[in-house]
């Protein structure tokens, strides 16, 4: 740490160590505050994100089997390694347009404490650390139930979804109540 044996001075070493310690601590804190690991994707032509901890996997859109007599939100079901899983088109919930899900379309599998479910997206852009400095929280009690705010990134804004609220929303469950 010091490099020079002859300049051995316990006080300066300790001081240096303390400085390093504090610096490391503050660095860690700054990092934790600044960057949120998010999955970024396109919905209704806009860029959205949510924290990676909610996402299980991103898959290509398999054949979706339509389910009769359920809310239109449920686009269909598919086989996820032997488990029957729903695919949801959440765009109407967010008041978004519904352009067709094309070749770039994917399904993000997310897991609530009750079930795993699939969310149809128009394209996935991978995991990104989003800088919290540019984060603007949505107004409290705003009309957008499932939006926590948006990040102002250099190449435009990314809307942060409130995935917890979305997964707890009763309207995504079939036959609730």
């Amino acid at each position, binding site marked *: 740490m010091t490099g020079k044996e002859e300049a051995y001075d316990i006080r300066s070493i300790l001081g240096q160590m303390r400085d390093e310690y504090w610096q490391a601590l503050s660095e860690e804190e700054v990092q934790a505050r600044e960057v949120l690991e998010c999955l970024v994707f396109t919905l209704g032509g806009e860029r959205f994100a949510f924290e990676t901890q909610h996402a299980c996997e991103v898959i290509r859109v398999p054949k979706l*089997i*339509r389910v009769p*007599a*359920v809310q239109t939100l449920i686009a269909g079901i598919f086989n996820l390694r032997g488990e029957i899983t729903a695919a949801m088109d959440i765009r109407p919930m967010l008041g978004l347009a519904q352009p067709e899900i094309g070749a770039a379309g994917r399904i993000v599998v997310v897991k609530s404490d009750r*079930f795993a479910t699939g969310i149809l997206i128009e394209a996935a852009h991978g995991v990104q650390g989003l800088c919290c400095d540019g984060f603007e929280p949505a107004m409290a009690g705003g009309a957008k139930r499932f939006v926590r705010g948006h990040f102002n990134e250099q190449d435009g804004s990314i809307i942060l979804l409130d995935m917890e609220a979305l997964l707890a929303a009763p309207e995504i469950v079939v036959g609730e109540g």
Partner: protein
Amino acid sequence: MGSRYLEIFCREAEEHLASLQSGLLVLERNPERSSLLHELLRNAHTLKGSARMVGLSDISAITHTMEEQLKGMERGERQVDADAIDLLLKGADAVALITSALLRGEVPDLDVERFVAEYDRGELTRPAPSETREAAAEQQSETVRANVKTLDHLVNLIGEMIINKKRLEAKLLTLKEIAASLPADQAQSLTLFRRDLEEDVLYQDYLIQELHEKAMALRMLPLRSISDGFERLVRDLAQQLGKEVRLQITGHGIEMDRVLLEGLKPMLIHLLTNAVCHGIESPHERTAAGKPREGVVSLSARHEGRSVIVEVADDGKGMDPARIKAAALAKGVIDPREAEAMGDEEALYLTFWPGFSTAEIVTDISGRGVGMDVVKRNIERVKGNITLTSEKGSFSRVTLQLPLTLSVIEALLIQCGGEDFAVPLNYVQEILKVRPEEISVLGAGEVIKVRGVTTPLYSLAAMLELPRQTKSCATLAVIVLKLADQRMACLVDAHLGSSEVVVKGLGKQFRNVRFLFGATIMGDGNPALILNVPDLFSAAANDGRRATRSGAELDEERRFKVLVVDDSITTRTMEQSILLTQGYDVVTAVSGEDALQKCADEDFDLIISDVEMPGINGFELTRALRESERYREIPIIIVSSLSRDEDKRQALQSGAQAYIVKGAFDQGMLLETVQMLIG
């Protein structure tokens, strides 16, 4: 009484208590939901029946008073308020206290007579001791539950193997096609390889089947495991009623899936109780009719094909169709015209209506009309079928047809609305090819003759709200479904043969799905939905009623297509469902832009739009549509929360035909306007 029954009873009681408790709590929050009462009543009633069977008179006394109270609530004679619910909860607690004490081999610390007396007066002051229920649960959990779960898991895994095998079989077919498309010299080695592989797959198939049978056998229990207490039940009941009855059981050893047996037990208790109470006459009456003093109630089980047949029969007075009709008339279940047209056999099935009873006297045992509908509901749960036969004066017989197991069922695969579905074979009577000229119109619906019997015909796609395939084939594929005494014919796109399918749940995101009871995974790895046939029958019944009310215009050849434009999901869904129930095809758009896109893609007969939306508003949308050749004449309805005259004027100026204010918005208004504009 053996401790084994006690344990079984306590476990059953725990389930009923749990559902009583949760049901009561829901009721407390929504006192207006009187439909909950019937369910609670069933719980109390079943609990009472089971308690009586194992000779626990304390519990049957408490549940009897609870049942009385619930019955009063259902009839509207007693209030559904916090106090009443509290009382019921205390009753449930008292039962729990007794069962948990019994499980520990202790005498319950409860003066039941006093409890019941206080309960009846509604003045239970002493808080019913809430017992440490966890302790009881713990004691049981180490016995079988964990094992059974592992067993279920094992069966599921084998189910996966069956699915995987199907996939292999599908691949073999592909391989065959590939070989066929190759030049002969190259194809030869591939063909040899394919044959080898085919043999391997066959052998694997054999192994899987063996394994499956063995695993299923582990889950199978003999009928004996639930029927042991029945003799006691019949004896006690007969004694109470002053009758002489002998119970004859045949086929104790017939084995069924554990889950099925659990569902079967309450049904059998009800059926046996019914037979003793309503079927068998008093010794006096029997002698007068020239029958032996002692009546015989028989319970029998046997295999028939891939089903198990369980029958409960008695040599008593039989069911009287005339009396059943009269009771149904008095209760308003049917009207005089329906009664007139109803055959004797059909009349027997009226006893399936909730609340139906022909008993003159309501006793604490039966005649409360929570009998046959429980049976019917449970049989639907276990995917079985039920038949009633009776001859006045000599016998009645209830036949239950059950699948061997619920995890793998025989199903008919069909295609409908572009999707594949599986229909449990238990409900399929036959498959037909019908020529269009064989379909005739009766009332508001279509019918066909099936073996000389006029059978209502429905489009399965329409029932399931799926797009109808427009086919102009010479013959139409029809499947005839049966449920109890009912038959219905369903128009499908095609049938794809029958197959063994592995039943999978739809997962927790699907709480309650109409028309479906699960899904299976097909050879190509994609799911196919398994239809719940009883739901189709009830949908058909509702549809029939509606059709007679609103006239025959519903069944027009062409369905009108409506585009609903609104950025609010609630409004959209509401309007969509109103229109769907009236037989319109509905497409939704979330914005003006979206609507324009959709209008470019397909033709609509009518457009219903909101005004205020992100992007272009409803007026702008209307104007844009009016400018196009295609939509110049198409009616547009504006639905908005703006109620100023200025807005209405603007709507008309932009070219809309009608303007409905959201505040005044109601189903009738919307439909009237739609019907006025497009009929």
